[in-house]
């Protein structure tokens, strides 16, 4: 692998990311899947970096899941998104930051559609006005939340207490980066580093001391694909995609997987359990899985946040091997306690996967 070849491409795919005054819109599913991530994002931006981030209580789903599952028509999706823009405009913000990759993809698709077909934008303005009497300005800057963390990766490293290196040996941790399909595969120039060799997560990993693993099935989808996952009988397809990736990354013995999409960390994490039950196979060392993190969780760990405040106890694959390697102290007894010290209950133990 020739790094300079990638660096040349990365230069070609730079995007503008606003540096303050963000209007933040949440993901439908991330607070269930990875409950500490969005909170960590707000804490990092507001408390560590002193940025102005605003979220409005009236913002809704962007309907991206429904749109990609073929149950919400595009005109409806555009009108709902126009309402988000209206709320942002009313709140006095211009820089939109979605937490979800599919939202980011949908917002991008809509803005590009309006750029090429202004009559569609006019029609949507009329729909929104008829339905809500609202008007809007399109965002001046659209960046995914991972773009924002990427932008401040050196500030985070400077304030950081831990690095992505083995604290005893100094060996850089080997990190698989996995980008959500809707981040740049639809519009390559809207993603940091483009679609084929995205830099957004690689930039964080390198800045925080880790080593990126580029394995043959890196570009392959995690398999989430709403319709595959939503129908139980189709989930085998979803899991087979993740399985293909695990088989391909296995020889590189990665220490962890870093993701920037709501679905990918969920499925790359949970399918390791299902595959272990069905096939008896695990991909981490010693019967364990490969820990999977969101970019906010990893940034939080670098900054020295308590792993249980980051919600890492909600992962299927145990995160402790990574904490141990990075030398992050944690209270094992507090893993399943809530913030008042009450027990959250203990999860059932998988038969094969060691957690």
């Amino acid at each position, binding site marked *: 692998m020739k790094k300079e070849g990638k660096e040349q491409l990365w230069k070609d795919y730079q995007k503008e990311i606003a540096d303050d005054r963000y209007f933040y819109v949440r993901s439908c599913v991330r607070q269930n899947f990875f409950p500490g991530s969005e909170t960590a994002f707000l804490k990092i931006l507001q408390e560590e970096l002193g940025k102005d981030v605003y979220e409005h209580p009236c913002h809704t789903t962007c309907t991206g899941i429904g749109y990609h599952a073929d149950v919400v028509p595009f005109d409806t999706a555009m009108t709902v998104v126009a309402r988000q823009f209206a709320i942002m405009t009313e709140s006095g913000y211009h820089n939109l930051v979605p937490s979800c990759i599919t939202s980011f993809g949908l917002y991008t698709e809509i803005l590009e559609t309006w750029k090429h077909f202004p009559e569609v934008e006019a029609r949507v303005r009329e729909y929104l006005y008829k339905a809500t009497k609202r008007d809007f300005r399109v965002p001046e800057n659209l960046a995914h939340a991972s773009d924002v963390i990427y932008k401040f990766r050196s500030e985070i490293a400077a304030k950081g207490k831990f690095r992505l290196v083995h604290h005893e040996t100094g060996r850089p941790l080997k990190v698989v980066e996995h980008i959500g399909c809707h981040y740049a595969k639809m519009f390559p120039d809207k993603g940091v580093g483009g679609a084929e060799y995205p830099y957004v997560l690689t930039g964080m990993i390198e800045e925080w001391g880790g080593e990126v693993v580029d394995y043959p099935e890196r570009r392959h989808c995690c398999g989430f694909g709403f319709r595959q996952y939503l129908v*139980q*009988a*189709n*989930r*085998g*397809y979803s*899991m*087979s995609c993740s*399985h*293909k990736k695990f088989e391909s990354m296995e020889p590189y013995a990665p220490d962890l997987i870093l993701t920037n999409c709501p679905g990918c960390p969920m499925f790359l994490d949970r399918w390791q359990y*299902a*595959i272990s*039950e*069905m*096939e008896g196979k695990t991909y981490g060392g010693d019967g364990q899985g490969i820990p999977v993190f969101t970019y906010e969780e990893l940034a939080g760990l670098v900054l020295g946040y308590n792993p249980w405040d980051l919600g890492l106890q909600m992962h299927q694959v145990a995160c402790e091997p990574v904490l141990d390697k990075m030398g992050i102290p944690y209270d094992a007894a507090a893993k399943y306690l809530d913030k008042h010290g009450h027990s959250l209950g203990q999860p059932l133990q998988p*038969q094969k996967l060691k957690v």
Partner: protein
Amino acid sequence: MPDFGFKLQKDRQIDFDANDRSATRAIIETEPTFRLCIACGTCTACCSAGNFTDFSLRRMITGLKRGNYEGVRAMADQCMLCGKCQMLCPRGVSTRKLVLAIRKHIR
């Protein structure tokens, strides 16, 4: 194992690296004109057997080239060795001998 209601799916991808193509090499040794096929489909179009069954010499040859032997033997048994395809093949593949070679090397 819990009942998940779904399972891992077999990959449809032809895994060229993993497939064993040794029988194909033996067939080529027995009948070297095997290599000359350009998959034009003339054989399949004129085939007496192929008019009534799913027999296709073109598909069989492609499968053999990739080491994808599933169904090849059953298909080879459907050929009636009439030789019509041999008359029409633009590349001079000795199709009858090829079918016999396939029957010899693929069980």
